[in-house]
């Protein structure tokens, strides 16, 4: 008797409850996508910075070997690019000068650090 009586009871539920849950589920999915994109951006940036740091450390620690590698890459491009690189002899020459390479890498690193700080604490600084 108890079971039968209890099973006949129906519980009142707000009419639009399912629609509201569905809307919340969609919002949750959107938030997930946005946070995934943000994390991908952060990871990409962190990767760029690490590569930049590794390049600078490599150049500072092993200037001769890295220089040789870069020169061989440059030569490879020159050989393969042929006519294209021949149009920019001055640019190729500049890349081959190591101090200019350091300068370019330092600027890139500075920019990357600025971007990373902006992503991580930028909002807090702006809000303050």
């Amino acid at each position, binding site marked *: *008797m*108890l*079971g*039968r*009586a*209890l*099973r*006949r*009871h*129906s*519980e*009142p*539920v*707000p009419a639009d*409850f*399912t629609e*509201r*849950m*569905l809307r*919340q*589920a*969609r919002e*949750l*999915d959107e938030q997930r996508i946005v946070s995934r994109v943000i994390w991908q951006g952060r990871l990409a940036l962190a990767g760029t910075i690490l590569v930049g740091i590794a390049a600078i450390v490599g150049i500072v620690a092993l200037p001769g070997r890295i220089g040789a590698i870069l020169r061989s890459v440059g030569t490879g491009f020159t050989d393969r690019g042929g006519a294209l690189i021949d149009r920019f002899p001055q640019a190729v020459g500049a890349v081959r000068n190591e101090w200019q390479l350091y300068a370019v890498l330092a600027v890139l690193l500075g920019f990357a650090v600025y971007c990373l700080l902006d992503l991580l604490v930028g909002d807090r600084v702006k809000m303050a």
Partner: protein
Amino acid sequence: MVGDKWEQHGEDNRLRLLCSGDHEAFSWFVDKYKETVFLCCRRLGLREDEVEDVASETFMAAYKGLGRYSGRSELSTWLWSIAYRKGIDCLRRNRRERQLEDEQENEIAAGREDGPTVVTEGKETEQVVWEAVERLPRLWRVAVVLHYREEKAIADIAKIMDTRENTVKTYLFRGRQKLREMLSGALGEDCNAGK
């Protein structure tokens, strides 16, 4: 209607789509179990404004966790355990506020608390029984509803309420006893006529 369409899908197919985050499947899921979740929240004695919040939290937690649902227990048992946990959390959060309310309510209800239920003319038997169940202490009430309305096994109830099976048996035994006392005047012999 979404519900009709989804009832035609096989159980496995529905579950697979649900776990993969399909919105139509989730809509079917909410439609099917919303009454169960509201039932759980109200039987825990949450206030009406809290009931809706906890029900929403329960479904959102289920939506997030569906990918991890292993299928070891029934979907309704799994959902009950989430709703029960969220409801208890809500009760704990608002304990102090609730104590004051309960004190006031107890003062008002002091006279009628343990008296037998009176059948007023025209009142259906199930309504009388339901009102008696509502007057049981919180945990006995949840155990009785889970066992007699939702037809859950003792082991499942123990899992939902995060307690031992013997404790559930005690809740059910005491709940039945109390109901028998409350309903003896109202329904006479009928209340001893089994479950």
